[in-house]
C-alpha cells in the first residue's frame, strides 16, 4: 500500500539498516567503508529479498543512544544492532522485534591474574559498561540481588570500553557474552583474559522494526526465518540452484518458491527467500563466516544451534 515501509523502500530502491557503529563480527566498516558482520548479513539478506540486490543497503551507524529513535523516527527501516528483545522495548518503545538471531547473555571478562573465578567475587569492583544498554540495568539488578557493590565506569562505545579495560581502568568489562568473546579475540594476548562462567541475563538479540506496519514486520521476520529454516533443511548458497531444480522436499520447495507463491502474501515475488539465502548463505553460513569458530571471534554455536542440534533455533514452518 501507499506509504507502507515496503513501498517506501521500493520507491527509494534502497534499504536503510541501522547497525552498530563498530563491533567486529557483528557490524563494522572496513578501511574502505564496506560493512561486514553478522547483523550486516541480515540486512543484506533482507535487501536481497525485497529489492533483489544485497548491495542496495544503506548502513546507518547508530550508537546505543540513538538506535531506537532512529528506528521510530523512520530514519532506518530495520534495526539490526544486537539489541535485546525486552518487554518494555516491545511495548512502551513501540518497537516490534521480529525474532531472535542470536541468543546471548550478559557476562563478565576479567584479567586472569586478578584471581577472580566467579562473578560473585566482584564485590567492590570497578566495572566498565556501555551506557544506554540493557546490560546497565542487568548489572544494577545483579549486584543488588547478590548484595554487592560496584563502581560503574560509563563508556560510550565498545572501542572505548576496550581501551579502559586494557588499561586497567576497570576490573571487569561486562557486555553480552558474544561481544566479550569478540573483544577478547581481538586482544593481542587473549589467554590472559577470562570470561567468567556466570551469565547474568537472557539477551535474545534480534532485529526490530517499527510498531504498526505488520506487513513490513512479516517480511523481516520471515526473511530471518528463511535463513534459519534454510540451514535446517540443508539449503546453502552453494547448493541452492541445484535444490531449486531438484528438491523433493515440499517445505524446501515452498521456501524456494518453486511450488506455492508464498512471497505474494507479503507483497514480494516468489523468489524472495532464494535471493535472501544467496546473499550471504543460510544462518549457519552467516554465523560461520562472521563469528564462528573459524573466525577470530571464535564463537561456538551453543544456544544458537538448530533445535535439532540441541540449540534454540526453531523456524516456524513455511506453509
Amino acid at each position, binding site marked *: 500500500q501507499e506509504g507502507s515501509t515496503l513501498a517506501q523502500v521500493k520507491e527509494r530502491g534502497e534499504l536503510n539498516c541501522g547497525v552498530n557503529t563498530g563491533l*567486529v563480527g557483528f557490524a563494522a566498516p572496513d578501511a574502505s567503508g564496506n560493512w561486514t558482520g553478522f547483523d550486516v548479513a541480515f540486512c543484506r539478506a533482507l535487501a536481497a529479498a525485497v529489492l533483489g540486490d544485497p548491495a542496495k543497503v544503506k548502513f546507518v551507524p547508530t550508537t546505543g543512544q540513538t538506535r531506537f529513535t532512529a528506528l521510530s523516527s523512520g530514519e532506518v527501516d530495520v534495526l539490526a544492532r544486537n539489541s535485546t528483545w525486552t518487554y518494555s522495548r516491545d511495548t512502551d518503545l513501540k518497537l516490534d522485534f521480529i525474532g531472535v538471531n542470536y541468543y546471548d547473555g550478559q557476562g563478565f571478562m576479567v584479567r586472569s591474574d586478578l584471581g577472580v573465578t566467579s562473578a560473585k567475587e566482584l564485590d567492590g569492583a570497578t566495572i566498565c559498561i556501555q551506557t544506554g544498554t540493557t546490560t546497565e540495568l542487568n548489572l544494577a539488578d545483579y549486584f543488588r540481588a547478590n548484595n554487592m557493590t560496584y563502581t560503574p565506569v560509563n563508556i560510550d562505545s565498545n572501542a572505548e570500553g576496550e581501551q579502559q579495560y586494557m588499561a586497567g581502568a576497570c576490573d571487569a568489562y561486562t557486555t553480552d557474552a558474544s561481544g566479550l568473546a569478540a573483544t577478547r579475540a581481538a586482544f593481542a594476548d587473549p589467554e590472559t583474559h577470562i570470561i567468567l562462567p556466570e551469565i547474568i541475563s537472557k539477551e535474545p538479540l534480534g532485529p526490530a522494526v517499527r510498531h504498526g506496519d505488520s506487513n513490513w514486520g512479516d517480511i523481516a521476520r520471515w526473511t530471518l526465518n528463511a535463513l534459519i529454516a534454510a540451514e535446517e533443511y540443508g539449503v546453502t548458497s552453494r547448493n541452492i540452484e541445484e535444490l531449486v531444480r531438484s528438491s523433493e522436499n515440499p517445505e524446501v520447495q515452498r521456501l524456494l518458491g518453486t511450488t506455492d507463491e508464498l512471497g505474494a502474501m507479503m507483497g514480494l515475488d516468489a523468489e524472495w527467500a532464494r535471493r535472501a539465502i544467496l546473499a550471504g548463505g543460510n544462518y549457519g553460513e552467516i554465523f560461520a563466516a562472521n563469528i564462528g569458530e573459524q573466525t577470530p571471534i571464535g564463537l561456538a554455536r551453543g544456544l544458537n544451534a538448530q533445535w535439532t542440534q540441541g540449540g534454540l533455533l526453531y523456524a516456524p514452518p513455511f506453509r
Partner: protein
Amino acid sequence: MSDTHAQTVPFVRDTMLPSAAPPVRESGAIRWLRTNLFSGPVNTVLTLLGALIIWFLVSTFWDWFAHSVWNASSLNECRAIIAATWGEDARGACFAVIRERWNQYVFGFYPVELYWRPTMTFGLLMVALAPVLFSASLSIRRVVLGITAVVTLWAMVVLGAPAGWLIFAAAVLVAGLVASERNISWMLPFSLVYPLLGVWFLWGGTLWGPIFVLVGPLLGWLAWRALSRVSPMLATVVAILVTVLFWLVLAGDAARDAEALLPLSIDAVRSDRFGGFLLSLTIGVAGIALSLPLGIVLALARQSDMFLIKSLAVIFIEFIRGVPLITLLFVASLLLNYFLPPGTNFDIILRVIIMVTIFAAAYMAEVIRGGLAALPKGQYEAADALGLDYWKAQRLIVLPQALKISIPGIVSTFIGMFKDTTLVTFVGLYDPLKSMSDAVRANVEWKGIYWEPFIFVGAIFFLICFGMSRYSMYLERRLQRDHR
C-alpha cells in the same frame, strides 16, 4: 634677588655631539638577555621555570618522537621494530597508522577511485573564495592561487583523475590566476555558482539537479524585475514565492526528465561515505557560508525597531546560545523527524549542517550586532538624508562598516564552528577525531593506538584554525591601514 634671570648661564653648543654606541652592557646580546630574561629576581626565576618546563616536555617526548616508526602494518609490528632498533625498553611513536590509514582520516569512506573529486572541489574552493577573501592584495592572491593550482593539479594526477576533469580543473585554476592578475571580480560569477558545483562534485549524481536549483532564483529574479516597478515589497515576496515553489514543485521532476533526455551525471557518492576531514570541511565550509548571511539577518532583526521582529530575533538568538551544540545535534538526529511531515527523511549531513549553521548564526548575530552598535548614528542619518532606503543604506553604508569592525569576532566564530564539527561523532557520523579513530582501532592491527591519531588530527586542526586566526589579524591590520 627677585630678578628672574639671575641664575641663567647662557650656553650655546657649537659642535654637535655624534651619536655614540651604548655601553657594552647596554647593547647587543647581553642587554637582550638582561632585559628579556634576567631583569630581576622574579624574572630570573621565571626564565628558569620556563626552561625547566621546556626541558621537561622535550625530555619526556623527545625519545618517543625520535623513535617513531613510519613503516609497519600493525601496532605489534611497530613495537617489534622499535624494540629491535632502539632496545627492549624503548618507547616510540607508531606513525605508520597515519601512513596506512591517512586516506580514511582525510576522505572517510569516499570511494578510493574518486578521491580526486573532493580534492578538486576544495582546490576550486580557493578560486571561488579569491574574490571574497583575498580581493585586496595581488601578491597574496598570487601565492595562494599559485600554490593551490600546483597542489590541486598534482594531487589530482596522483589520485588518478580522468583527463577531462584534469583539464577542467586546470582551466578554472588558470582562469582564476588570470583574473587575479587583471580583475579578480571576474571570478565572482564562479564564486556564485560554486556552492552548487561543489555539492555536485562531492555528492555526484546528475548535473541537472544543481542546474534546476539555479533556475529557481533566476525565475524569481525575473518575477522581481517584472514587478519591482509596481511595488518592491510585493516583488520581493513574489520572487521568493516563485523560487520556493519552483524548487518544491517543478525542480525535481524537471531534473529527472532532463536527465532522461540528456544524461549528464557523474558517479553518485552517498552521505554515509563521507567521513574524516572531508566531512569536517564540508560541514565547516557550508556552515560558514550559510551562517554569515543568516547571522547578518538576525543581527539586523535584533537591531530593528520593530518590536515583534526584534523579540523574535532575541528569543531565537538567546535560545540557541543558551543550549549546548550537542543537544542541537541530538535534535537534528533524533527529533527533526518529529517536526517534519510523516515520512520525510532527509540527509543527516544536511541536517547537521542546518543545526551547525543555526548555532553559528546566533553567535555571528551577536558579533555583528556589536559592529552595528559601534557605528555612529550620523551614518544612518546621512544615508537617510541622501534618500537611500533601508536596504540600500544597510547594504552600502552600514554593513560594510559593521562587518569590518566585526572581523575578529566573525573569524573566531568560524574557528569555533570548525572545531565543533568534531561533535558530529555523537550522532553517528565519522568525524576525524573520535569516530574515525575508533573505527581504525576496531581493527585488530591498530587496537590500542591512541596518541598518534590524536597528534595527526590535532595538528591538522591546529594548522587550519591557526591559519584562519592569523588571516583575520592580517585582514584587520590591512583594513585599519586603509581608509586612514
